[in-house]
């Protein structure tokens, strides 16, 4: 008889684990924002401000759950069933990938649904070096020199890493011409000692573990380290040419329609363009998309920024040429291994 009781208790507990996850959503509105690595602090701040704004406006209490990781890996988790109401990823390609892998999950025209290509904030790629810049790094040419140890994440899994790669390519092409660009990028990856799966991992490798002479970093991540975390041990070096990184945001049609959260998801993303949110964005060292607000943050260096759309023919083309299986990046890594 005890055994019966025991079995019943176990069964109830097991069912409870289902209730634990599914019951929660019913009482108040929750949103899940699946995002990329360095936006953790930004969205922690923004979520609070949005929740207050939304409650004042509609009376509805909204709780926003966050999930962070390498942009490509996060897109995969949504494809495989992570119930994201909104995705705020490092590049448009990762959002395209979700809609391609599961038809109808995200509408094809998603990029036109919000202003500025659905990028409420932009950023770029800069160099982070150790204090005093001991290797004298000024531009891309200096980091491909022999004996310079470069830290950057893996473009196969990290969004930031793809921006790094394309920025280097754009510089080499502008300076040395199309046919020399590949050699330049190959030299660069020949100098890479640690290829972490995500941008946060690379930052930790460089800052915490003290490896490498230069970190190719998101501008926002570089400022975060210099101003708040690095204890005065790091400096930012701005190259002459870099790339305009446009992290994209959208809602996941298949999920918001099923959960009935479409209105709040749209409000959540639209409010990113409000003045209040744009200031939070600037405070976290992302470039606000509103030019008026951007002026309030003079820390952003003026440099030549290429774009994926104009200079690489859009993400689909760039992905196919550089990052797909057996693309340029794979070939470069294979060549480097042979050496």
């Amino acid at each position: 008889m005890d055994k019966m009781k025991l079995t019943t208790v176990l069964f109830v507990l097991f069912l409870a684990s289902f209730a634990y996850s599914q019951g929660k959503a019913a009482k108040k509105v929750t949103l899940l924002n699946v995002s990329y690595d360095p936006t953790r602090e930004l969205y922690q701040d923004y979520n609070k401000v949005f929740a207050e704004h939304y409650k004042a406006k509609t009376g509805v209490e909204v709780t926003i759950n966050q999930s962070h990781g390498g942009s490509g890996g996060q897109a995969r988790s949504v494809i495989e069933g992570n119930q994201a109401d909104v995705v705020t990823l490092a590049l448009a390609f990762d959002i395209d990938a979700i809609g391609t892998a599961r038809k109808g999950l995200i509408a094809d025209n998603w990029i036109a649904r919000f202003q500025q290509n659905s990028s409420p904030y932009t950023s770029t790629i800069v160099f982070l070096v150790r204090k005093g810049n001991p290797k004298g790094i000024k531009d891309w040419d200096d980091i491909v020199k022999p004996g310079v140890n470069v830290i950057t994440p893996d473009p196969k899994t990290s969004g930031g890493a793809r921006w790094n790669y394309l920025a280097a390519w754009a510089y080499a092409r502008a300076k040395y011409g199309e046919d020399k660009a590949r050699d330049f990028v190959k030299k660069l990856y020949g100098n890479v000692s640690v290829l972490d799966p995500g941008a946060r991992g690379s930052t930790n490798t460089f800052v915490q573990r003290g490896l490498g002479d230069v970190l190719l970093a998101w501008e926002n991540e570089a400022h975060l380290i210099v101003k708040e975390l690095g204890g005065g041990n790091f400096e930012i070096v701005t190259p002459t040419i870099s790339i305009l990184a446009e992290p994209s945001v959208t809602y996941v049609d298949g999920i918001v329609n099923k959960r009935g959260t479409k209105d709040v998801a749209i409000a959540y993303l639209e409010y990113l363009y409000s003045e209040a949110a744009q200031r939070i964005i600037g405070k976290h060292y992302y470039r606000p998309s509103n030019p008026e607000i951007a002026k309030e943050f003079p820390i952003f260096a003026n440099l030549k920024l290429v774009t994926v759309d104009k200079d690489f023919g859009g993400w689909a083309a760039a992905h196919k040429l550089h990052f797909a299986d057996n693309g340029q990046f794979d070939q470069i890594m294979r060549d480097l291994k042979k050496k």
Partner: protein
Amino acid sequence: MVKKRVVHEPLWVKTLLFLISGAFLFVFIVLPLVTIFREAFKSGIAVYMETFSDPGVMSAIKLSLLTVLICVPINTFFGVFIAWLLTKYRFPGRKVLITIIDLPFSISPVIAGLLFIFLFGSFGWFGAWLMEYDIRIVFAVPGIVLATLFVSFPFVARELMPLMRELGKDDEEAALTLGASGFQIFWKVTLPNIKWGLLYGIILTNARALGEFGAVSVVSGFVRGVTTTMPLYIDILYGEYMFRAAFALASLMTFLALVTIIAKAVLEYYIAAQRKSMEVKIQS
């Protein structure tokens, strides 16, 4: 009379061996453990306690406890059941079953996690069906429980099988001839015989269920406060440069691990005592 040959190492060899192994243990085990506590308490007890007022940390602790609370009893029940089946009966396919029990040991935890994605993910075998009825397994708590169940399964059975084999079925057969039912035999005869080994298995199951990172991280989706267990949350805190909080939570887990080890040592003592009394019984 044959002189018993005893090997006597010179004193310096003994000292050297002791120093080498001592230094190794100190550097690789004691020092990192001390570091965790030192880092955790570096900014004082107030900052340490602050960590545990973070709702994310609390929900991670709760989720870990819930997972353990579900996994340990289930794995204990089935562990005993299977150990009983495999040691008291002979049947075709028995060897295969023994090998299958070990599978969670030999499979990498990451693969164990992916396995559940392949089964329950949206492209998985049951993916379409689950989606139709809006049942969420992976990227939700049930997935975490299932992955933990999987990786912590073998401990109880593995611990009990050699013990049960050694005990044989004499006691049970005696009980049977005296008219006991199968159920009575288990509760009154088998269970008292295996209790120390069983507890030992439960403690190991508990330790693994609490500490599992790999398999759980694959199925979690890292929704903070919802699908983050303690080990996952330590990783998140570390990634957010919240080193103090990461070490504080790590110190809690380490403390639980130390309690586990002490409990394990105590049990080992009792198991050894039981073995001895069994030997006495056999000799007499």
